């Protein structure tokens, strides 16, 4: 039995509190098994097992292993004795959010919690050493800790963390604990193995979809296929006598669920259930009507400014050549392998939810709202996620639905599982966006002016409207990778620049999709830089370098990929290269690729060299996996995926019409990590995804002379082979 997942899944499955105040002893906070808590992040069992508690969610990206490395680094514990568990949101709330933010998105897991989790480990170490020193009646300064063992240097006496944890937990946590200098790190920066692998290869890992509770029933659901539509009527009598069916219930005003003994019975009955929809006015919306709205925005007089310097009109006046191009990026479903699901049990005195979630507190908020119960009567237990990619953070629709269903069957635990079709039709999609780019070149081929006009959907207007309100209608997130300042600042030093956004929202709900707005912005900007370089008759790398004054880290990653791919030397016959660079989520990223094209439309991506400069690299092996994995997600979107709208609903309803890359299409990915410290931490899970697509599109032009500007490429007859 794998100890690590036992702890995680048993806490989840039994529904017990992962932590709680000890009923029989004051002052010490104890874990469920009675072991003492030293700090909120560190529990130590008598056998020296270290349980590291993390609020962020592991969904494959390796964040839990990286965070545990950071705690263990400062704790000076034996890495082989480290395990982890999730605190519950309700407990966190009772303890004044001691674990900090639960939200696991925006590539923030490590970069925005590294300081307090390291402090949590360091504080526990100081307490353990002090407890040993007290026992030996020697000054703590004469004792050292390493590998879960404390040694009194002068006498050679030794003890272990497990033996002094109880005494250490009674000490007042010190206030002025110093963190290690990064130069002293031994575990941070090492490619240690993940903590959570074993149960993923033997079928034992419990995902939300696998949860079993005593007496549990299963629910299948259909929401109105047109966003904003409602249920007009349904004929429950037609299915209530079907085998296993327990109840047919309305869910809000837009959905119907069937609850049955097994999910297959529920789904079979739901398929047979006659439902009349009131599709509402959105049923008139089509892909064409949405595209027409976006096209209008390309030339609209009103737009929100994201980045501006100099005078773009004056710049264009100096130009002897003007280049103009229009690009497009579509709606995309997240399509994590595990469809949306949540389990709920409701009584008027208590409501509990078990859910694979990227944000336990967002799940908790959805539970509170749907149950109508106060926070002290509610709890959320986080379960392993079969992928998230942004779908399971800000959006908790499945939690709301599960609670509404459970409320109609008090006392009975109900697991709601969406079909893949439901998942495809009720996403929170990558925003749809067009861009018109205009660049002016002078007689010497210098870029003297650039206007990027974005036209399309705002995520924040739909999801975080208060931010858009504060910004007087502007969505600052739209400018990721193109912004004037901050963690998504623009990677070029172009004089006379204007980047603006004509916000054109649709009825299709937008969401944060791995990489978010850098996906389209990198395609727009980095393909257009190639168009400009070619119009100026210059090498694409040299042209970029000339326009990257004062941007040493952007230049660093670009140079690194150019050197590794061999940009200065000719490629092998039939092989063509492309480049791209951007700053995203506080990391600097670049890619260079090699492709070949057969019959003008069959693209083989042989190799992608990708460089990431996040400042700090906690686990290089996991960074490599995030980079190469993100290219599967990003290149699937580039070549073969899009969601389109017909009669107000999404057309593509499963992987046959929304395909995803297979292993035969996988390029060789070589990852370069640049980590020179400097105090600023960049993200890992998302940034690099954005540079693969433009690098490949740029290489395609080199191979064929044909410039691709519309994603996905399948619409131009192009295949990934």
């Amino acid at each position, binding site marked *: 039995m794998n100890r690590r997942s036992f702890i995680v899944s048993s806490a989840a499955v039994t529904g017990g509190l992962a932590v709680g105040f000890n009923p029989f002893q004051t002052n010490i906070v104890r874990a469920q098994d009675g072991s003492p808590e030293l700090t909120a992040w560190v529990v130590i069992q008598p056998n020296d097992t270290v349980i590291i508690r993390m609020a962020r969610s592991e*969904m494959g990206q390796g964040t839990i292993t990286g965070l545990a490395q950071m705690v263990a680094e400062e704790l000076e514990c034996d890495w082989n004795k480290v395990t982890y568990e999730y605190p519950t949101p309700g407990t966190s709330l009772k303890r004044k959010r001691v674990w900090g933010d639960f939200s696991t998105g925006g590539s923030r897991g490590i970069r925005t919690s590294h300081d307090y989790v390291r402090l949590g480990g360091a504080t526990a170490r100081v307490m353990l050493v002090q407890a040993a020193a007290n026992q030996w009646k020697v000054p703590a300064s004469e004792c050292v800790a390493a590998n879960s063992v404390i040694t009194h240097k002068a006498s050679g006496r030794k003890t272990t963390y497990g033996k002094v944890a109880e005494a250490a937990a009674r000490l007042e946590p010190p206030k002025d604990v110093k963190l290690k200098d990064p130069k002293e790190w031994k575990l941070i920066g090492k490619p240690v193995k993940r903590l959570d692998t074993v149960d993923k290869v033997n079928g034992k890992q419990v995902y939300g979809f696998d949860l079993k509770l005593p007496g549990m029933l299963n629910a299948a659901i259909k929401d109105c296929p047109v966003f904003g539509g409602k249920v007009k009527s349904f004929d429950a009598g037609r299915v209530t006598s079907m085998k296993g069916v327990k109840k047919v219930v309305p869910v809000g005003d837009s959905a119907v669920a069937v609850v049955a003994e097994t*999910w297959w019975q529920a789904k079979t009955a739901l398929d047979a259930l006659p439902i009349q929809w009131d599709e509402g006015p959105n049923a008139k919306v089509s892909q064409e009507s949405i595209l027409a709205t976006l096209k209008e925005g390309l030339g609209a007089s009103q737009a929100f400014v994201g980045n501006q310097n100099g005078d773009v009109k004056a710049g264009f006046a100096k130009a002897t050549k003007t280049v103009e191009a229009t690009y497009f990026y579509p709606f995309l479903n997240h399509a994590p*392998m*595990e469809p949306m699901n949540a389990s709920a049990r409701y009584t008027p005195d208590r409501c509990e939810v078990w859910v694979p979630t990227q944000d336990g507190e967002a799940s908790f908020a959805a539970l509170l709202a749907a149950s109508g119960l106060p926070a002290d009567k509610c709890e959320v237990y986080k379960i392993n996620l079969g*992928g998230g990619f942004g779908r399971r953070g800000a959006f908790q629709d499945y939690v709301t639905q599960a609670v509404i269903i459970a409320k109609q069957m008090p006392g009975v635990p109900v697991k709601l599982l969406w079909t893949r079709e439901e998942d495809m039709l009720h996403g929170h999609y990558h925003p749809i966006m067009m861009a018109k780019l205009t660049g002016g070149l002078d007689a010497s081929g210098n870029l003297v002016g650039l206007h990027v006009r974005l036209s399309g959907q705002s995520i924040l207007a739909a999801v975080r409207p208060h931010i858009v309100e504060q910004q007087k209608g502007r969505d600052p997130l739209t400018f990721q990778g193109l912004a004037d300042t901050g963690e998504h600042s623009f990677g070029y030093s172009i004089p006379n620049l204007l980047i603006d956004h004509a916000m054109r929202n649709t009825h299709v709900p937008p969401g944060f999709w791995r990489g978010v707005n850098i996906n389209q912005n990198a395609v727009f900007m980095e393909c257009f830089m190639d168009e400009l370089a070619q119009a100026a008759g210059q090498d694409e790398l040299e042209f970029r370098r000339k326009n990257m004054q004062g941007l040493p880290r952007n230049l660093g990653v670009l140079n690194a990929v150019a050197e590794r791919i061999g940009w200065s030397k000719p490629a092998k016959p039939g092989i063509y290269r492309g480049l791209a660079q951007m700053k995203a989520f506080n990391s600097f990223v670049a890619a260079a690729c090699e492709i070949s094209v057969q019959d003008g439309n069959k693209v083989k991506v042989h190799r992608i060299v990708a460089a990431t400069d996040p400042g700090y690299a906690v686990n290089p092996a996991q960074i490599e*996996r995030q980079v190469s*994995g993100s290219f599967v997600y990003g290149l699937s979107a580039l070549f073969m995926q899009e969601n389109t709208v017909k009669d107000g609903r999404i057309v593509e309803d*499963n992987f046959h019409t929304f395909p995803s890359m297979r*292993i035969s299409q996988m390029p060789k990915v070589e990852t370069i990590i640049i980590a020179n410290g400097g105090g600023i931490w960049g993200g890992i899970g998302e940034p690099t995804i954005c540079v693969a697509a433009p690098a490949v599109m740029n290489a395609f032009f080199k191979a064929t002379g044909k410039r691709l500007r519309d994603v996905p490429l399948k619409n131009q007859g192009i295949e990934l082979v």
Partner: protein
Amino acid sequence: MVRLTINGKTHNVDVDPNTPLLWVIREQIGLTGTKYGCGIAQCGACTVHVNGAPMRSCMLPVSTVVGQKITTIEGLASGKTLHRVQQAWIAHDVPQCGYCQSGMIMAAAALLASKPKPTDADIDAAITNICRCGTFQEVRTAIHAAAKATKA
């Protein structure tokens, strides 16, 4: 009643004979390592072995596999000894979220059973599972490593 042999054990289950094998494995037998991803035999998360051959169980009516030898991810190891594919998966830290990996491992194990030393082209042809985290680079490395661990 449908009589099934799963991981060497015989089960008599009271189920509609049209029920896909996937849901019988999960809901009647209670083995949840085999996953649902699409329900249309596209993604491969539901891959099991039927008489040693990899099959997508989400569209396979349970009535069609009566009397045949079915193996799921839970039955791949020999007692406490993990299958060499599972060992290679651990050694190369292959899974990310892990949800598709049961099916991926079953497909890889079936490939090695029929082709002990597969080429990259063999892997491309046999492994058609979808992985949204994008573990393909590690999957390929681990299959080659498992092949090397095979006694010739």
